[in-house]
């Protein structure tokens, strides 16, 4: 196997000119087979790589190429991996954090800003997540009402498919962290494309942003009441919705997954499916030392209670998690618990982390499983 580019560079003395040519040629990160080499160029006393990949030391310390400002670290990067990362620099006692890789044009956006992206061999941004001029766009309609359950005005966006016909009954997809799914997971584009291609059924989706997310999504009775007793009836009066459990799906990622699952537990048999992405299904088997901090207390209490008495609360669950995130173990465990409680589970893992592009990339598989389109009917 050929030596890594960085090792080939180090075979001979490196001066600033060689380092410059190296960086100009390879950029960062350098993907070679199963390895990724991250590069930083600049004066520093210490350079660290922050990545939040479970299984790799975090931070990773970069090594300096002697007599240059070139820093590097090589790590294992299995094919099809996708990792978000940033640098942390210490210089003359001053620490600079959250720096994106200036040598890498690839960035992912999220509610906390952008991060650099390391895409391993075989990973490509799925084409169905990109705008397709052939796809007829659905409409996003701003709406809202005064929620008694939440004691405030709740705003949301309703997605209506392009070929909307009032005489057809549509399934309803309720999306937690709605604005983030639209902004960072390209969800409107994804819906437009998948519906246009007949890969998923025409559906109505409601994108609901949270207020105080960490409270509302952590098994919060008023939130569940808002969804089940206010939002669904409100939409049912205004849109031709399929008025059966299998016509309703709750969806969310991270704490939004808990909001979806806990709402289904509180209102069993109302929702036919759940779409859970990297759900924060943290639990303890003994004592209560879960390590997630106070915001996780109600979540752990809820998940522990469910594990003590698992029951069927919906028909089908699409559950996914990134292999590189700390939530992988609880998700693996809960997939079995869900199955044994009598629910049909499609569980998927991706070589990715706890981020919006991971959740975006799983949407096609999730939605085609939950709401298959009419491809099997079409014989042109």
């Amino acid at each position, binding site marked *: 196997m050929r030596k890594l580019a960085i090792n080939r560079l180090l075979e001979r003395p490196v001066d600033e000119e060689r380092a410059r040519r190296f960086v100009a040629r390879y950029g960062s990160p350098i993907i070679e087979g199963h390895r990724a080499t991250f590069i930083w160029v600049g004066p520093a006393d210490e350079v660290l790589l922050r990545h939040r990949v479970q299984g790799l030391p975090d931070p990773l310390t970069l090594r300096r190429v002697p007599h240059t400002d070139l820093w590097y670290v090589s790590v294992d990067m299995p094919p099809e991996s996708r990792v978000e990362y940033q640098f942390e620099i210490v210089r003359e006692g001053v620490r600079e954090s959250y720096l994106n890789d200036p040598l890498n044009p690839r960035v992912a956006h999220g509610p906390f800003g952008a991060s650099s992206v390391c895409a391993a061999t075989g990973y490509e941004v799925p084409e169905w997540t990109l705008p397709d001029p052939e796809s007829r766009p659905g409409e996003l309609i701003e709406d809202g009402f005064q929620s008694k359950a939440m004691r405030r005005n709740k705003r949301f966006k309703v997605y209506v498919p392009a070929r909307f016909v009032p005489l057809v009954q549509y399934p309803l997809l309720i999306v937690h962290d709605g604005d983030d799914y639209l902004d960072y997971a390209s969800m409107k584009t994804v819906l437009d494309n998948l519906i246009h291609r007949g890969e998923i059924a025409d559906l109505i989706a409601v994108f609901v942003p949270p207020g105080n997310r960490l409270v509302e999504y952590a098994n919060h009775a008023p939130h569940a009441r808002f969804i089940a007793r206010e939002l669904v009836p409100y939409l049912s009066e205004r849109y031709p919705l399929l008025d059966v459990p299998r016509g309703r799906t709750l969806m969310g990622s991270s704490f939004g997954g808990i909001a979806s699952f806990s709402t289904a537990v509180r209102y069993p048999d109302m929702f036919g499916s759940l779409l859970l992405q990297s759900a924060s299904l943290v639990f303890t088997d003994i004592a209560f030392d879960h390590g997630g901090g106070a915001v996780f207390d109600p979540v752990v209490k809820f998940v522990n209670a469910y594990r003590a008495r698992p029951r069927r609360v919906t028909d089908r669950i699409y559950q996914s998690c990134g292999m590189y995130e700390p939530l992988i173990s609880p998700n693996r465990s809960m997939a079995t618990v869900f199955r044994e409680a009598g629910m049909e589970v499609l569980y998927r893992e991706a070589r990715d982390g706890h981020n919006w592009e991971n959740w975006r990339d799983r949407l096609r598989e999730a939605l085609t499983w939950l709401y298959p389109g009419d491809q099997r009917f*079409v014989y042109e």
Partner: protein
Amino acid sequence: MTTVLLGPQRFRLTAGAVLAEVAPDGVVATVTAGWRDREKHDAELDEVMGGRSHNLHLWHRLGHVLVNDHAFAAAAVAYNRAVDEANSLYSLRLTHALESVYATMRHTAREDLRDSALRAGLQSVRDIDAWYIWLVGELEQDLRTSGGMDSSEVVAQHRSEIREILDGAAALAIAGGHVGFLSRCLRLFDVTPPESMPVVGWSAGAMVLTEHIVLYHDKGLEGVQPAELWDRGLGRARGVVAMPHARRRMVLDDLDRNRVLAHRFAPARIVLLDDGSRLYLEGDGHLPDQARVIAADGTVTTLGEEMAMTNGAEGEHDRAAGRRRGPRR
């Protein structure tokens, strides 16, 4: 009675030539309801028909009915929902029954015992198919009697207009597309061409001409899924399960699966319709020898070759017994 089943027309256009052959003169009534909202985008089709097509516009007529007969529209919505629910129950039962058949095939046991178990398993699958077809038939009957499908004045008006067009047509051509909407539109508007009228259908249009419409898509996002009955067809082509786009949509090298498919729908034949396929079913409705079929042993062959092989294997015995070969099944 001339019925012609054609393969997909996208890459090999044969419909125009076939229609010129079976109905050289006169109007060709066309159905493009499978194209749904693109139904009227049929200029190219009209060109292929030599400018003599008259589109029945069933999809747009359906829209008109739903807007103008609210009682029927409500009944149709309820019917659709009931069919969806029946279909999900059918899928559930079918999946488990087929899994049992495949598990039996893989099981190691004395051959005669395993064959017996297989036959019983296949019979269960056939029973589930029959139950589903019965069930959707009952639901349709409800729609006809209680839902106003046969008494709606709006529907009656459209049926009358369509009959008039058909009376003046030399042939009927049914294009592919969404087979569900296509079959529903044909039934709602009672499109029943007289036996003397040549009928040509391609892709979904060929499927609706058979007795039973079977859906399949082994290469979809969900992976290999069981072939499922959807509904009855017009029954013009008897003893045929039409499977257009076979190469694109089916995993044809899985012999076990093919065998199950062949036995499940027997005595009907699984007929594969790929680009360029052209099958003339004359008077007696028998398939021509060049029809590509899935044989009982799961192989893909032509009907002629299969008959030759069967005759070869049994011919000696038949000759010794002084028997003639029976009719094609």
